[in-house]
């Protein structure tokens, strides 16, 4: 039994905040009120802390099976909890890739009982080779939460059309990393052209499409237009694309090498604007751990990826909340309600009778990013030494305290 004392409860539906005590027992929010007392309950002082429905990171790479030297499900879930998340959706580009119900089931088995929720995204094509569609129904039955080839975007138009139609028929979400691989990834057109193609196919054939980590201003113009004509599409942005430009490569070297690459100032400004205008539906970290040895090579040879689970909240609060660009409830939607809806997960509101799955944020806490203290197995972040204002304070999942003040329990 836990009482969150004098918390600032964020109501995402109404866009309001109010102060109250929250009594949690048996996995449920039993009571919300003031001056709640229970001799048996552990009392947590939540003055000035914002309570949200649990945060979901719908795009992470936890590297299991096959690349456990970078990360594994256990360390990845700890990093997620430390970063304030109550659920992650892991991409399928493991070794072997998750293109078969067996691989999917063993990952779910490994993740069971590890504090927060682990959902598995399955590959869209066999071996992520972009040739043959995976056995979708078998994978759905095994628990696939969405389908994606992520870093191996589907180039073939016919195949893309087929998968989109199937997504409508079988009711799954296809997550697409938009990149025309015949162009250099650093050319914004490589993304923009593919966003355009995929939106056209969606308009023509229907389907459930989510665009991963959008990075270019021109892509956002296309998405905004599509949304304006009532096309049902969603998209995400990463924290690093929101606050770093291509100039960061000069400063941080391979630590800033990522795909899609960091873009021009005008792109970053367009992303920030689109986030505030609700053209972008959610924050997803694209947490992509690599070892020091792997990143410590020439820029050309280094693998792409930036880790994000343990810095996302700090960056978004510092750059958007404290600069008056986004309010608490807007951040709550971007971190919780929207990704949960896209992935078909439940992240219930903070109301009496609802399951207690919540992320509590200390908006005022000032801290310095130090990868040495990360729970993740890797440390490849360009944000080392950044001073941020705003940090995850508490994670409650199934009524249990999973993380408190940065410590995973």
């Amino acid at each position, binding site marked *: 039994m836990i009482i969150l004392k004098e918390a600032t409860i964020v109501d995402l539906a109404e866009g309001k905040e109010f102060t109250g005590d929250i009594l949690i027992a048996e996995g449920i929010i039993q009571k919300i009120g003031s001056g709640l007392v229970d001799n048996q309950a552990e009392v947590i002082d939540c003055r000035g802390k914002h309570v949200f429905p649990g945060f979901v990171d719908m795009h992470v790479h936890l590297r299991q099976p096959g690349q456990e030297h970078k990360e594994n499900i256990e360390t990845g879930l700890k990093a997620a909890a430390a970063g304030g998340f109550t659920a992650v959706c892991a991409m399928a580009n493991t*070794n072997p890739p998750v293109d*078969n119900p067996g691989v999917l*089931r*063993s990952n779910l088995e*490994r993740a069971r009982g590890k504090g927060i929720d682990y959902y598995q995204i399955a590959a869209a094509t066999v071996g992520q080779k972009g040739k043959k569609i995976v056995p979708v129904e*078998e994978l759905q039955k095994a628990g696939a939460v969405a389908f994606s080839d992520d870093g191996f975007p589907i180039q073939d138009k016919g195949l893309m059309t087929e998968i989109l139609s199937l997504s409508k028929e079988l009711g799954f979400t296809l997550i697409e990393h938009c990149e025309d691989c015949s162009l250099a990834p650093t050319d914004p057109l490589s993304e923009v052209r593919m966003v355009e193609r995929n939106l056209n196919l969606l308009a023509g054939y229907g389907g459930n499409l989510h665009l991963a980590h959008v990075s270019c201003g021109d892509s956002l113009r296309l998405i905004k237009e599509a949304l304006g004509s009532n096309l049902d599409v969603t998209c995400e942005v990463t924290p690093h694309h929101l606050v770093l430009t291509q100039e960061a490569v000069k400063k941080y070297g391979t630590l800033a090498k990522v795909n899609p690459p960091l873009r021009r100032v005008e792109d970053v400004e367009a992303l920030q604007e689109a986030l505030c205008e609700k053209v972008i539906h959610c924050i997803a970290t694209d947490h992509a751990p690599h070892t020091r040895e792997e990143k410590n090579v020439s820029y050309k040879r280094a693998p792409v990826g930036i880790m994000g689970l343990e810095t996302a909240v700090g960056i978004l609060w510092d750059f958007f909340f404290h600069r008056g660009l986004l309010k608490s409830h807007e951040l709550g939607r971007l971190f919780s309600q929207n990704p949960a809806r896209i992935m078909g997960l439940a992240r219930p509101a903070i109301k009496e009778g609802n399951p207690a799955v919540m992320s509590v944020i200390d908006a005022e806490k000032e801290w310095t990013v130090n990868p040495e203290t990360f729970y993740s197995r890797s440390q490849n972040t360009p944000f080392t030494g950044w001073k941020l204002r705003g940090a995850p304070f508490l994670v409650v999942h199934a009524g249990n305290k999973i993380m408190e003040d940065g410590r995973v329990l």
Partner: protein
Amino acid sequence: MSWKRKHILGLEEMTADEIYTILEKSKIYLDQIERKETGSNSEELKGYNAVNLFFEHSTRTRMSFELAQKRLGMEVLNFHAVTSSVSKGETFIDTIETVSAMDLDVMVIRHVKPGTPELATKHTTASVINGGDGSREHPTQALLDLMTMWLKGKDFAGLKVAIVGDILHSRVARSEIFGLEKLGAEVILVGPPPLIPGDLSRKGIEISHDIDEVLDYVDVLYLLRIQRERMAEVFIPDEEEYFRTYGLDRKRLDKTKDSCLVMHPGPVNRGVEIAVDIVNDKKSVILEQVRNGVAVRMALLSLLLKG
């Protein structure tokens, strides 16, 4: 996980996570084989040497190991007890020490005596893989069987697997039971009372003496090979009688669920454990087991030698 284990002696000592790691690694090789990426010219384990020490007759397991070794680019030596100096009176330990002195990296051992592979580990620096020891364990067979179920999308949690036949003398059955239990499956042992060991009656394991009782609810029907020379011991007068009582014929097969898998470690005695026309039925995955066997053995060699 990072691989720690040096020898593969049995599934009794393995964790679920280790089993899953092996299955996942196996799928990488299976995918390569299916894409025809792995020929006899793979370099992955080039420079490593393997010896297959078979003190007991085997064709399939030995061939599967040899193919796995060659596909990874290993040097392979084959040793058959009948044609070797064992028949000249050399002891098992002498053989292991002699072979070991030739600087080998991995030994696959099949022996009629239980525990022999474990004994070998004390006399060699090589990794030892148990290729079947008496009636104790046959881990690589059980792993390829688990892989077959796993690839077919079977959810091990609560999976109901009937193992039919001579459980008492079967190392396959023992490894199978250990593996299935670790992954959360339920095992039903089916066979004549004298062929089901009493010490196996425990939580998660059911015993039945009537195959017709289990047909309609099992997810996997695993038929063990009947060794003709043991028939007399178990009061089964002949093969026809065994087939009538425990054999899988069309009528019995039709009573199983559509999704039920029929498995057999081979070689099949057609008309004894299974009717002639069922071996190639769509529910039968007997040939997939064989195919997966090579991938599993490649995975084990790679994990043991390269981690």
